[in-house]
């Protein structure tokens, strides 16, 4: 049982306190049953998300970043209610989504939408683009004339032609399909879009186009993005706020520059040091941090700090006491008993950091 947050400031929280954030997530937990071995009775559970809290304001972009299995996608799916959280609360514009009836929840879905990682898999192959795009509008009772106008307008915004509406998903390229996925998320005029690795399946040049498009749409419609990614460079480019996740918990969070230029959690530092920079001169002189081993299984997470099994700074205390996400006096939140803020991207380490393999 984990994930209590400090009483301090949460990532993205408006400190003046007057305005309610668009999205307010508290102690979110999502567990999945895991099949036991043969003859084993009773179910065991894996906590994919183990107590996550954050706020997201209107028009802002918060990125959840981490490696596979850290729970970032599951968190996003709980926020837009593709999955039901096991416990914890998700408040959207002050309304607790847990308290809504099934029908009210369905109706409120127009306000938060999702864009998926695999643009091919997220489109129904048997439906034309026109059918796919008009379905959400039909469900929410928007009249057909208005629907047509909205779809036309958005199609031209993402540089697709009206004639494309009669075509099927397989007739498009990967980049075009992702544009279609984005239009589908936009037709209901949502206030929040969860983007689950929207560019990671695309080639570099297409990736840049989609990133630019996302930026433009955010500015034009005042959208808030919950951006899920493993690519730290893309996250740096797009985010206002960043939360780094490891094994189902947030280990560090703050503004873009807090996390990138002044990271204090060893895991964040390792991630940043491992992400490549397309400049050989910088690559040659950057500090290296090579973490030992693999992430442990979330079925049986380590006691105390979840990162301690790979951490080069781990002390006995780390095994006994789980660090809370709190501000150690550096202006942003870190869940570590021995935080040391530094810029690991460009500065040379003054002493060797990194664990043996």
């Amino acid at each position, binding site marked *: 049982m984990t994930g209590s947050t400090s009483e301090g400031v949460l990532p993205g929280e408006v400190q003046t306190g007057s305005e309610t954030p668009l999205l307010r997530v508290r102690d979110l937990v999502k567990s999945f049953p895991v099949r036991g071995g043969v003859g084993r009775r009773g179910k065991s559970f894996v906590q994919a998300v183990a107590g996550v809290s954050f706020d997201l304001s209107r028009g802002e972009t918060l990125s959840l970043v981490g490696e596979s299995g850290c729970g970032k996608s599951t968190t996003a799916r709980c926020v837009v209610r593709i999955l039901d959280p096991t416990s914890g609360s998700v408040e959207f514009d002050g309304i607790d989504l847990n308290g809504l009836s099934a029908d009210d929840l369905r109706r409120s879905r127009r306000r938060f939408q999702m864009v998926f990682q695999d643009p091919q898999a997220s489109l129904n*192959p*048997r439906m034309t683009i026109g059918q796919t795009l008009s379905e959400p509008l039909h469900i*929410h009772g928007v009249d057909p004339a208005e629907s047509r106008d909205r779809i036309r307008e958005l199609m031209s915004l993402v540089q697709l032609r009206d004639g494309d509406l009669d075509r099927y998903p397989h007739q498009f390229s990967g980049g075009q399909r992702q544009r279609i996925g984005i239009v589908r998320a936009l037709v209901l005029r949502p206030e929040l879009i969860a983007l689950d690795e929207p560019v990671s399946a695309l080639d570099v040049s297409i990736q840049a186009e989609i990133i630019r498009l996302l930026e433009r749409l955010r500015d034009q419609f005042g959208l808030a993005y919950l951006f899920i990614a493993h690519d730290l460079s893309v996250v740096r480019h797009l985010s206002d706020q960043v939360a780094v996740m490891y094994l189902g918990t947030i280990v560090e969070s703050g503004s873009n520059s807090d996390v990138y230029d002044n990271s204090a959690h060893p895991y964040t530092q390792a991630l940043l040091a491992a992400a490549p920079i397309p400049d050989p001169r910088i690559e040659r002189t950057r500090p290296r941090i090579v973490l030992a081993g693999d992430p442990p299984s979330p079925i049986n997470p380590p006691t105390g700090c979840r990162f301690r099994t790979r951490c080069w700074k781990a002390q006995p205390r780390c095994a006994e006491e789980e660090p809370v996400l709190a501000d150690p006096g550096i202006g942003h939140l870190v869940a570590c008993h021995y935080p040391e803020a530094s810029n690991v991207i460009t500065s040379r380490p003054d002493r060797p950091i990194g664990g043996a393999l």
Partner: protein
Amino acid sequence: MTVSVTTSGSGMSAQRVSRIKAVGGLLRHPAIAFGVMISAAWLVVVLTVHWWAPYDPYESVGERLRSPNGDHWFGTDALGRDVFTRVLYGARQSLPISVAVIACALLIGGLLGAVAGYFGKRVDTVVMRLVDVTMAFPPILLAMAVAAALGPGLRNGFIAMVVVWWPIYARLLRAQVMAMKHKEHVEAAVSIGATRSRILRRHVLPLSFTGVMVNATVDLGQVVLLTASLSFLGLGALPPAPEWGAMITEGAKNFYQWWIALAPGLAMVTVVLGINFLGDGLRDVLDVKVASK
């Protein structure tokens, strides 16, 4: 230049255009072309036999128990009826009823399986235990029991066979739907606020059926045999109806007049063979598609 292999269960990226091309390509494959030809020939027989059959299937048209000759290609039976004519008319009994059995089993089993797979929990438990119980019986035994309880006749035989066959499709479709449930396009449908029944109808079922259709085609041959088996045991079509199984029963009574049983037997072999070849061809087109991109 990657060569990708997609299965209908997962990818469903089957593209209409390439599918049509693939069908053309498959016809070049001898076994499949053979299957298509035989199946088509039998279909023509079913639809048109009454226009061109040499004799009336119910009338005595010659000497009793004549061996095959120029007038009667497969000889005559104990009542002097033309065996060849009766075999042709037999297709009218066996094939439509087999198709109907598959269709009904697919509808009932498919729907139950889809609902069980999609909603899970208690619905799933109930449906699947029913499936387990039904499938625990040897098919012919269960069909015999049901047919015997309802009384002989083709209609009751039909009901018996549907009872035997629906669990197969319940299982298949449940598996398909459960796999489909977590696909991203279904998640997308959830996120736009579609109701569960809409998701099942528009985003899950249409994509789950392809694989099941292939199985249904292959099963058709088995149902033809089951129909004949029931009739053979006196639980299906009743005399004097020209049904293949019933004809074999008659043939068994006239053991030394081998043609009476052989003719319907040969008819069944060709039908089942044709359907099996056709089904395997369909599997190649729809189920596992090797496409170079």
